[in-house]
């Protein structure tokens, strides 16, 4: 019964998506008069059908309806509530349902912002409808989440243990999808502008919000993914250049380039065609990322044809690349801008450098991610492209990028005079040099890490100086001016907030990579061991049975000198459906550093425990920085409305 309702929802959404394309194109061709009236029913059908499909899937999971194959494979009676809800996006078919729902949500939002007449908006909705046809078509065919089983099992298999071990797994995928799918909106408007041959910046102005929202969610998704990796995988890592991580990072890089080059287009009327190309590329990379993560191609090139989903996603990617860039090649000149750069030594010049580097960064990550796949497909040889290769390429690009972040915002538009830039940089540069010297004396030896800390400091101190000088020049009290900076130019100061977050992130990465320590410690109950200025005392082991897993763990007390800092309980979780236990490390977060204990084994007879003890400095700064980046995106998103309100008052 639930399966039938879900199927019906998918079909309603699919038919509505087709209607949205047909009516959207018709409205576009007839000038977009009363587009909202003509497109109302397809939009209602799309969002309604998507809600029914998602609701049916959740209902099936919550009511243990194992007659549905997806529920039987990804859910078990003992699964806790949170992970039962999250099981809806724990595997391919369900994640496509979530994708469809998010896409329908964005379509509804675009619909509510339609104007009259609005040919571009109608065409954009037709493009979104075409994307929706693909995803709801997948749900109706190759990736049907509602296929039923002839023999209904008594209990399900349960989701992959890694996906039901930490609450972050319940929120990381939806955040990522809100980002991924949101990139469809700028893409749709860019295609619409190309189709209309509209050379104005209207599409850019209209999609600014969606681009920033999608970018903020994508950033949040990546930060939460890194945090999850740190909290679950048991070796303290947060980024490993894994293909799945790269898949989320690639569209982030091009979307970040777009956010910056969009500023240049709005301020100086340059880079219009490049912006269209970036938006098409970003959307294509979200589909590529879905293909990489959801087709099984990464594990082996030859496994992705086992289901029809892989070839379907690959085909859709080709359609976007050929269709999108074909349209761009044919009509790009209509939206191209004529102004050229006055001087490379200018704000526009730094923006161009930023775009060159971000595009290069994306190219390198893409190359390293897909080269092993292509090589294997063509020659059958298997090679690894791992963190050392990515680091070698990413570090120089990243260093120049953060240097550009330091000097870019204080470089004037058009042509910068050296004395102006020097006047603005003199203070920040001194602060940076002294900070770098102090950090060297503290023991940091890697030149890369030192440059990273230095440029991070430069970014923050240049922003602080800028805020100080701007606030002082404004009428009224200094503190009041400082507080009202955001209202004066939310776009710029939101961006500066995001820059501050990035600076904190890179400084934290440099510190945690330079000063991390790890030791294996073996202890009997009651014994203590010294670890980097701490004392770790092993109290006792413990074990407990939970509904979906068996947990064994050990209790430790962490001292620094004589002061007791924390009780730490690292655990190993044995799930019924997997031999390999999943660790839950115990982390004590301090202002200076995290102490991270990961349980390796407990001898059953003697209760002797082996743990990996690790120390990672300034980890809080990494997570805080990531969240500040997200906040910066959200602040500049709120920009426009706030300004208008101020004007109307």
């Amino acid at each position, binding site marked *: 019964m639930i399966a039938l309702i879900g199927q019906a929802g998918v079909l309603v959404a699919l038919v509505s998506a087709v209607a949205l394309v047909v009516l959207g194109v018709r409205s576009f061709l007839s000038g977009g008069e009363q587009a909202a009236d003509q497109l109302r029913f397809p939009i209602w059908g799309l969002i309604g059908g998507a809600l029914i499909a998602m609701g049916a899937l959740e209902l099936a999971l919550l009511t243990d309806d194992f007659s549905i194959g997806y529920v039987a494979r990804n859910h078990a009676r003992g699964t806790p509530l949170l992970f039962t809800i999250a099981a809806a996006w724990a595997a391919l078919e369900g994640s496509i349902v979530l994708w469809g729902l998010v896409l329908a949500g964005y379509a509804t939002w675009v619909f509510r912002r339609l104007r009259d007449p609005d040919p571009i908006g109608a065409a954009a909705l037709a493009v979104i409808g075409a994307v929706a046809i693909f995803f709801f078509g997948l749900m109706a065919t190759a990736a049907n989440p509602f296929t039923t089983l002839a023999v209904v099992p008594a209990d399900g298999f349960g989701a992959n243990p890694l996906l039901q071990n930490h609450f972050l797994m319940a929120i990381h995928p939806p955040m990522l999808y809100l980002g991924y799918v949101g990139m469809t909106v700028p893409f749709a408007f860019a295609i619409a502008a190309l189709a209309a041959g509209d050379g104005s910046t209207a599409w850019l102005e209209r999609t600014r919000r969606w681009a920033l929202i999608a970018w903020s969610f994508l950033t949040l998704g990546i930060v939460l993914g890194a945090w999850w990796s740190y909290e679950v995988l*048991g*070796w303290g*890592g947060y980024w*490993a*250049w*894994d*293909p799945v991580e790269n898949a989320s990072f690639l569209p982030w890089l091009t979307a970040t380039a777009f956010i910056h080059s969009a500023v240049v287009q709005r301020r100086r009327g340059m880079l219009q065609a490049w912006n269209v190309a970036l938006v098409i590329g970003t959307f294509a990379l979200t589909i590529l990322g879905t293909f990489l993560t959801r087709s099984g191609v990464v*594990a082996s090139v030859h496994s992705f044809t086992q289901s029809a989903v892989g070839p379907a996603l690959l085909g859709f990617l080709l359609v976007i690349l050929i269709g999108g860039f074909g349209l761009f090649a044919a009509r790009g000149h209509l939206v191209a801008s004529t102004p*050229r*750069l*006055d*001087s*490379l030594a200018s704000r526009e010049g730094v923006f*161009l*450098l930023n775009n*060159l580097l971000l*595009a*290069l960064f994306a*190219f*390198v990550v893409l*190359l*390293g991610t897909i*080269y092993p796949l292509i*090589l294997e497909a063509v*020659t059958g*040889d*298997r*090679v*690894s*492209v*791992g*963190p*050392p*290769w990515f680091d*070698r*390429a990413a570090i120089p690009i990243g260093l120049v990028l953060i240097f550009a972040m330091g000097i870019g915002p204080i470089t004037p538009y*058009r*042509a910068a*005079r050296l004395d102006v830039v*020097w*006047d603005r940089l*003199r*203070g920040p*540069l*001194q602060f940076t*040099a*002294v900070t*770098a*010297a102090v950090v*060297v*004396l503290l023991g940091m*030896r890697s*030149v890369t890490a*030192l440059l990273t800390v230095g440029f991070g400091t430069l970014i923050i101190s240049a922003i602080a100086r800028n805020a100080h000088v701007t606030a002082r020049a404004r009428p009224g009290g200094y503190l009041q001016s400082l507080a009202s900076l955001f209202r004066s130019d939310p776009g710029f100061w939101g961006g500066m907030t995001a820059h501050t977050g990035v600076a904190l992130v890179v400084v934290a990465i440099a510190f945690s990579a330079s000063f991390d320590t790890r030791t*294996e410690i073996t202890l009997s109950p009651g014994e203590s061991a010294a670890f980097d200025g701490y004392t770790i005392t092993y109290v006792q082991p413990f074990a407990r049975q939970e509904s979906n897993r068996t947990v064994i763990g050990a209790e430790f007390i962490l001292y620094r000198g004589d002061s007791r800092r924390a009780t730490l309980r690292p655990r190993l979780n044995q799930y019924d459906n997997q031999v390999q236990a999943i*660790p839950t490390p115990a982390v004590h977060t301090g202002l200076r550093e995290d102490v991270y204990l*990961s349980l*390796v084994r407990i001898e059953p007879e003697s209760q002797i425990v082996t743990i*990996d003890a690790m120390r990672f400095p300034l980890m809080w700064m990494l997570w805080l920085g990531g969240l500040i980046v997200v906040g910066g995106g959200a602040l500049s998103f709120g920009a426009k409305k706030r300004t208008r309100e101020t004007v109307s008052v």
Partner: protein
Amino acid sequence: MSDRARTWIAAAVIGASLATIVGVLATDDPSPGDRVDALASKLRCPVCDAESIADSPTDLARDLQDLIAEQVADGWSDRDIIDFFIATYGERVLLDPPAGGRTAFLWIAPLVALAIGTAIVLGRRRRNPSTRHLTPEERRRVEATLRGDDP
């Protein structure tokens, strides 16, 4: 304080800091432990998908890390150790693909992309810049106008 004095102070502060940094870095030696870590993070744990020997929590990775430590202590060079791992586990054990043979493209392509990108950016520059700095006479007139005086 005059602008000139500020510049001199800035130069002194920056210079002294840089001298400290260079002095400390120049007198530093890598320890054997650093070598073990560096090697272990360049080699893939043979039973994992993509994790290095340094990062993987598996027992095999722990044993291999101990093996690398022994080899370093016995005086093997980095090259010897890496060759030993290639001979034992095949070339896929390298997380850092070699800059030749089938993976040469991985090294050339980013450089080519950088060259093309740089050429495109330089091509965006205006051939004859239309902006120029004001002459002293023009500057005087602009400032006078801004003050509200008659030029």
